């Protein structure tokens, strides 16, 4: 792969990787952008996934959403040498991709949710070995998660490592699959159906509890117990677009809502949120915790901005939240807002790897103690920031 700051044409698509170091010099603010990579996909994309299983390097998968063009899955790598974004692979995908998730234990495996015409489908794919100069090798379809009657919405992997289960969500059912990637087989273990027009949109698997999943619908957030496949509790009357578990603290969950912006909840006390963050001017589409620094939240919205929040949540008490909204709360939760986008942003993710941090800040690791990298995936662009906060 080529690197450098010049644009490369790859498979008919243009990537621009440019370093914008000047920005840092121009704005010596508290939060400093160390490196900013712009990588424009000229196709629309709705989803991006962090390849967690690949411990050696920082890679991402992005899937495009194009009705009329051929759709692709891009494997993007942050080159460890000198912080550049490199497209490591480009794979054709038969349908437009609405959701893409990387397998947390095998970096070559990922899942997609797609539409083809009227039908919806979900599959698990394997990236073939890159050998030779084959420009666009075919993805190997391990198995399809068939059996959904409604519109398939989301495939959810157990977020932390090896687990032989997989969850797929359509607009009224939740399927729990037993998967075997080596045998290319998947079996439905159990199935849960939501009642009365639930219109599920997606969900998140509790990293602290194998048996709990948070599913979101038009009007509520529902916590499902996978053993009984029953809804246990719910946050009602909330128009939730996205949900993310706190990777470090148990029972803390972040939701992105139309009405209230971003809210943090303690799952044991669902009556009132722990914290309110204002969110975006229009819908807040996605919210993600930074996997390393769980106080950092990243949100993407249809107002074409990506916001980085600092939300300190003490897991045991809700007292700390009581003065919020009153004028004496001086702490501004919004750390940074990246507004340089032209269209709605549908996905974002926060990543942080010690390895990466070390490489990027070799000289000043001692003073930089917080590091966050995120990507934005908008209607047509993908960007990577290295966000470093001096504490």
């Amino acid at each position: 792969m080529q690197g450098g700051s010049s644009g490369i044409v790859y498979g008919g698509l243009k990537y621009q990787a440019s370093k914008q170091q000047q920005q840092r010099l121009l704005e010596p603010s508290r939060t400093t952008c160390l490196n900013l990579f712009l990588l424009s996909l000229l196709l629309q994309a709705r989803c991006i996934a962090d390849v967690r299983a690949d411990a050696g390097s920082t890679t991402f998968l992005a899937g495009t959403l194009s009705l009329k063009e051929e759709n692709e899955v891009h494997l993007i790598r942050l080159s460890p040498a000198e912080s550049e974004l490199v497209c490591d692979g480009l794979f054709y995908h038969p349908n437009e991709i609405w959701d893409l998730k990387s397998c947390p234990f095998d970096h070559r495996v990922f899942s997609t949710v797609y539409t083809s015409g009227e039908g919806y489908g979900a599959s698990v794919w394997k990236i073939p070995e890159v050998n030779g100069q084959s420009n666009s090798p075919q993805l190997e379809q391990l198995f399809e998660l068939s059996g959904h009657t409604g519109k398939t919405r989301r495939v959810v992997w157990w977020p932390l490592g090896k687990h032989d289960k997989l969850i797929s969500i359509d607009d009224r059912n939740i399927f729990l699959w037993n998967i075997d990637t080596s045998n290319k087989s998947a079996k439905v273990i159990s199935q849960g159906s939501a009642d009365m027009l639930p219109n599920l949109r997606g969900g998140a698997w509790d990293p602290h509890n194998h048996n709990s999943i948070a599913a979101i619908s038009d009007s509520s957030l529902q916590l499902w117990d996978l053993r009984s496949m029953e809804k246990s509790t719910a946050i009602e009357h909330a128009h939730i677009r996205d949900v993310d578990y706190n990777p470090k603290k148990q029972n803390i969950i972040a939701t992105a809502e139309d009405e209230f912006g971003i809210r943090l909840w303690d799952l044991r006390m669902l009556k009132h949120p722990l914290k309110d963050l204002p969110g975006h001017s229009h819908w807040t589409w996605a919210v993600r915790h930074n996997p390393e620094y769980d106080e950092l939240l990243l949100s993407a919205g249809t107002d074409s901005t990506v916001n980085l929040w600092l939300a300190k949540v003490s897991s045991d008490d809700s007292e700390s939240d009581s003065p919020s909204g009153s004028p004496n709360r001086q702490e501004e939760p919004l750390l940074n807002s990246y507004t340089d986008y032209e269209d709605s942003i549908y996905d974002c993710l926060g990543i942080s790897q010690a390895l990466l941090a070390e490489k990027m800040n070799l000289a000043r690791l001692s003073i930089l103690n917080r590091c966050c990298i995120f990507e934005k995936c908008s209607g047509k662009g993908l960007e990577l920031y290295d966000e470093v906060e001096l504490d």
Partner: protein
Amino acid sequence: MATAGGAAPLAMDEKARRTRDLLASFYNTDPSAAAGAAAPASLARPSPTAAPASPLDSINSTSFDPDIYMNVLVQQSNLEGLLQRHVKMAAEIKNLDTDLQMLVYENYNKFISATDTIKRMKTNIVGMEANMDQLLAKITSVQSKSDTVNTSLFDKRENIEKLHRTRNLLRKVQFIYDLPTRLNKCIKTEAYADAVSFFTGVKPIFEAYGDTSFQDCKKASEEAMDLVIQHLQAKLYSDSEPIEARAEAVVLLKQLNFPVDNLKSNLLEKLEDCLLNFQNEPTQASIGDISKTFRAYLIIFPDSERRLIELTQALFSNRYESVRENLKKRIPSTDLLAMLRSLWEDATAIDEVIPEAALPAFSLETTRDIIRQHIATVFLHLQSEISEALVRTHSTSNEKLEESQLQTAMEASKIKVSQGCIDLLQEFHHLIDGNIELLVKLRDLIIDWVQEGFQDFFQKLDGHFHVLSGRSKKKSQESTMDSVQIDKVPTVLVLMLAQLCVYIEQTTVPKVTEELASSFFGGGARSYEYGPPFVPGEICRLYRSSGEKFLHHYINMKTQKISKLLNKRFTTPVWIKHKEPREVNMFVDLLLLEINGVVSEVKQILPGIVRRHRHSDSTGSTTSSRSNPMREDMLNRSNTHRARSQFLENHLAKLFEQKMEIFTKVEYTQESVICTVLKLCLKSLQEFVRLQTFNRSGFQQIQLDMEFLKTSLKEFVDDEAAISFLLKEVNNAAHERCLDPIPLEPPILDKLINAKLAKIKEENSNMW
């Protein structure tokens, strides 16, 4: 010896003295004494030449060494001198001999006479013995005689003494028997003091022998004493008696061991009743009378002070308590002032009598509390009045939505806030100008409280607004009733709150600040470590942010509602099998209805800006209008091209176009709010479209709907550019998501739109 007589006459005295000394030393056995006697003599010698150490002089001393003497003499003197000295010495020796002889004679003579005297004494003493014996015998006889006399007189003396004692006793008994009459006499002359002293004198006897022959007498005198006590009591109880007499009566009663404490408590109870009466019907007695009574009691019962203090304190605390009771209702400051003034006057009157009760301090403290409470109540009342005004409007406006009703309600609540604050300030003005000594002392404090009160009031009002709007974080602390209500907060109320916040920030707070500065300057009795109590800047900031919050909340609620509508619209039909568009979809009507509702609410509550020329508002308007024809071109071309290049061009065009600022800051104007709501709705529309996949007819339906919206929305907004941009975006999104994007032919489009317009017109005319 012969030469002694012929010695030099000048040396005669000295020589004689020396001789005598020598003689004396002869008798004196002590050599040191002799030497001591000789030494001063030699010292007193006038001749300076004679050194004491000179051996020549030591001839008289005990340590005289003849050899040395001779040697020295021989060495020092010539022959003539030696001769002279020889002569002299010989003479001296002769003299000494004669003197010695004379002394011996003398002594002898004396000795002889002494022996003679002793002989005579012996003879005299012989006859005395017999005389002495005689004397002894006589003395013993005298003594025995005297003893006999004494014994014979002894009986009689005892008798006399006994008689004397009896006489005294009899006298006392006589006094006791006389006591009743004496007491009666005393009663008659009202000499109660004498009577008491007599009786107390006799009392121990009565106690000892009361049941013997004294019985009658005791009874009689006790009766008399009872009479005395009665008289004394009567005297004590009668207010007409002089205070001193009453005090004396008490002292006497006390001497009689009469239970004075009972009396005292009786009297004090009477006083208490009296005070109670006073408390209930203050007109009956004046505070002057009470203070007089207090003074009297103080003198009569010097030890009753504590009780009196308690009484007065109870009296005043009760009265203040009743004032406080009044405070629970909203009472005008002037009334409160009158009450406090009368209380203060009473307190000072009483204080003159009993300074120990510390009434001024007490009333000062209580008044402070009361005024503080009063200020708090007044503010609370105002707050509830304001919220009542707000809530009333929304509850009535729910039932019938008259055209100008919201407007009047808005004005009413504005006036309520403003006028309420001013009225309060005036009332507080009364408090400060009350001219009572008490309030003068509290002036600084009151000023602080008023300022603090305003600060607190505004903050609380803000909090209350939040509760009303249903966005309060304190939901959990509210009652369940409230939380139920919160779900149904009318959006109008939120908008009104927003506007009210702006009004408070821009009008009321400056006005209040001004008032405070002009009439409530000073203050600062509290330390300034927390800064001045009323911080208009802070309040303004608070209200500005709250206002913005409410406005956003309003917009949010409205867009939420519309969003739900749109959601239903886009999720229910199967777009990919959509039928050919025949007319503008119903959801457009619903959307317009909602927006009409917003417009009518907003127009009544928010201030409108003067309508300028239409294309004026948005920053991106010029560029957008410039870009319009280009987009038009592009869309036209897209009819023919249906390839990927078109898609790229689409994006290229977008790149060159200046970014449209859709999410501008909301202002408190009708246009801005309506525009923001519209923009958000259209943005949502776009996002909904992006989630679907359309067939050609579905795309055309969207195109038609948007086209119709474009014409209809012109009525509402000035910022046409942004709206048309967003409508185009919706169109573009539909275009992108369409499998076969062929737009409707313009004539068909026009026809359908005109048909819809005609239908609307017809409906309107039917309604009229």
